[in-house]
């Protein structure tokens, strides 16, 4: 992933595509055996220090039109070092190397994007990933923490989006006239509106569980989209959303006034991809912090108890109505925030931006990442929001090419598979082979769910739980059942009432005292 983003489009080819697959497969399949880890690190290094790329990238002076951007060469050095440090940590402290790899990929990505030529298009992918993390975290509160299956999450995304659109576009486009409210006001309205609607949705569905809840929320998502489509002021009612035309020329976010520090300045309107990315990243970090704090608190435990067994949770004093509404409200508020952030950068909003597929995609982020885990949502967003974009450059040929190239095979051996690929009736081999993108993506999701049903980075407990379950099953086979039968046979078969007096010295000695 990282490498594809790292290199400009022209050089994005086989090795990088291969790396993506390798890293993802490693995250999926990797065990914690030392051999696998050594192989993996070797593979990553091998690809990073690809013989064709290194001399170019390392020793080439930066092109004249990018005077201050060290770009790929910097990363080519930094990433292997980081991986080596990670491996050292693994050997020294027994850190989970797989997790370290994932953290590294995630952590270094923003850095790579701010640097290097043609950073802007790549930063856009990052922006997509960042606001999808926000959305994923929001839905994770509802689905992952409280266990309430919500398939209408897009509704809150839409509410936040429209709140932003209506309040920050100019007069010619704005359905309610020019409001031009300050950033913080719009944000508060977007988040507050979504939260209120979230609670309102929560009220009627409080008694529903599982499938039924999913269906009702599904309908709710559609209702919001239909309202957005129809509230165009034609015929009855007011114009709220401009209907199918949507709202255009929406203003960007400007959280604080521009500060000029001579050499560079920041603040003001966040127009560029990278500025929008930083905004989305800050939101994601804030939401991630909140989600993590709540998970380890009274509130998170109450949610978890509800997820595990709602009746018992209530019996233990948890006000389930309150906490379910809280989950809906908080999830919706975060969804609204995601919508506002998205719209602040997309500059247009139409009802077709809020199809059901968004809800499904966000749910997939939560599930693939690992339910109830902030880390999982981050990984999930990278894969579900980032991968389809990254795979734009991948065609079958590039995979064949790259896969073989890694092993330094002579060119004539490589020609064979490529020739085969070119004989296919579809153009999967060339640049036009875009169809392959979603095929690959879909395949990856299927493989992922089969191999790692608990998600990529489940909350530690769940991971533990799954591992333990397997171990326990093994352990239980001889012992567990024997223990039960022993209980049954250990009890004397006397009828309950026929042995009225407790034997002396037996537990019942005290019954006389009590009388």
């Amino acid at each position: 992933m990282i490498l594809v983003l790292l290199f400009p489009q022209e050089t994005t080819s086989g090795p990088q595509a291969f790396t993506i697959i390798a890293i993802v497969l490693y995250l999926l399949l990797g065990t914690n055996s030392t051999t696998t880890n050594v192989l993996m690190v070797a593979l990553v290094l091998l690809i990073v220090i690809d013989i064709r790329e290194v001399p170019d990238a390392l020793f080439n002076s930066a092109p004249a039109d990018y005077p201050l951007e060290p770009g790929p060469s910097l990363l080519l050095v930094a990433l292997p070092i980081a991986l080596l440090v990670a491996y050292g940590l693994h050997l020294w402290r027994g850190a989970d190397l797989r997790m370290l790899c994932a953290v590294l990929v995630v952590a270094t990505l923003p850095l790579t994007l701010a640097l290097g030529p043609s950073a802007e298009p790549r930063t856009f992918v990052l922006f997509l990933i960042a606001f999808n993390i926000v959305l994923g975290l929001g839905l994770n509160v509802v689905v992952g923490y409280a266990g309430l299956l919500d398939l209408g999450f897009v509704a809150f995304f839409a509410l936040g989006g429209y709140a932003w659109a209506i309040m920050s576009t100019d007069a010619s486009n704005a359905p309610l006239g020019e409001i031009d409210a300050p950033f913080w006001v719009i944000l508060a309205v977007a988040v507050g509106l979504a939260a209120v609607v979230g609670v309102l949705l929560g009220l009627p569905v409080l008694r529903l569980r599982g499938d039924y809840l999913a269906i009702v929320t599904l309908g709710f998502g559609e209702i919001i989209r239909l309202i957005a489509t129809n509230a165009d002021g034609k015929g009855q009612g007011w114009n709220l959303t401009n209907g199918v035309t949507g709202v255009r020329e929406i203003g960007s976010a400007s959280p604080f006034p521009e500060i000029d520090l001579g050499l560079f300045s920041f603040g003001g309107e966040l127009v560029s991809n990278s500025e929008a990315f930083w905004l989305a990243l800050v939101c994601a970090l804030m939401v991630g912090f909140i989600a993590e704090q709540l998970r380890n608190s009274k509130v998170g435990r109450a949610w978890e108890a509800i997820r595990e067994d709602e009746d018992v949770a209530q019996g233990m004093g948890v006000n389930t109505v309150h906490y379910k509404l809280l989950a809906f409200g908080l999830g919706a508020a975060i969804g609204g925030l995601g919508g506002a952030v998205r719209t602040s950068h997309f500059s247009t909003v139409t009802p077709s931006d809020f199809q059901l597929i968004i809800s499904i995609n966000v749910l997939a982020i939560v599930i693939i990442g690992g339910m109830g885990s902030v880390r999982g949502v981050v990984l999930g967003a990278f894969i579900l929001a980032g991968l389809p974009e990254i795979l734009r450059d991948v065609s079958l040929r590039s995979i064949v090419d790259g896969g073989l190239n890694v092993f330094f095979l002579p060119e004539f051996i490589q020609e064979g598979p490529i020739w085969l690929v070119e004989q296919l009736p579809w153009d999967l081999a060339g640049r036009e082979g875009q169809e392959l993108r979603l095929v690959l993506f879909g395949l990856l999701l299927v493989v992922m769910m089969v191999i790692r049903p608990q998600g990529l980075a489940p909350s530690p407990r769940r991971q533990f739980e799954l591992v333990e379950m397997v171990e326990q099953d093994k352990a239980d086979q001889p012992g567990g059942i024997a223990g039960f039968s022993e209980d049954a046979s250990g009890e004397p078969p006397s009828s309950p009432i026929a042995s009225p007096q407790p034997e002396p010295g037996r537990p019942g000695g005290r019954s006389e005292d009590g009388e």
Partner: protein
Amino acid sequence: MALLEINGVTKRFEGLLAVNNVDLVIEEKQIVGLIGPNGAGKTTFFNMVTGFYEPTSGDIYVAGKRVNGMAPDQICSLGVSRTFQNIRLFQAMTALENILVGRHLHLKSGFVASMLRLPSVRREEEQAEKSARDLLNYVGLRGKQNELARNLSYGDQRRLEIARALATEPKLLLLDEPTAGMNPLESLQMVQFIRGLRDDRGITILLIEHQMRVVMGVCEYINVLDYGEKIAEGTPTEVQSNERVIEAYLGKGKAAGHVAP
């Protein structure tokens, strides 16, 4: 004033009369048994006392307060807690977390404070964890705080369920077959443990139990249900010699045979 006072409580599920016009009074610090053949309505009765079911008619008073129609969490806040016949722990949570859920009502941190993890929240969490650990030790689960509930042995799960109920700081504890599936030694330990709850902690206990040795050993007063109706009550000796009770358990012919010799 009695801790629990129940007047003519009835529960009807469609055509089935599960509990019919039952009266019951429990004084503070009593250990009271509720027995009866399978399907007699004992668990339904528990469910009404703890708010899981709303009685069709009749009144339930906890410490003088009428609790009909109250939600289980409200009744819990009045000091009534329970365990379940088929152990119902939060399986995917650790032993410690299970108990911390039981502490829920006694944690005062608000939503926003928890979100920001203010120092006050941190202190409260630390205290809660400490008291949860104490409870674990008390029920004999020392060192198992990080085990997932589902991985505990059967007896430990029973103990954990009681610890979770104790974490709510109940005045009245309802135990639904606390020794089900236990061997005689474990049952003996449970009897001593239950007595300890009353003696050391002053908790009033109402328990459903099938093992007569346990019932007769620990209860000071026993109520017998059959087909939803209370057929007898009294001290263990009284109940044991009650004809209707013997009949309910053993059937008429058997009962006659029992009396004959």
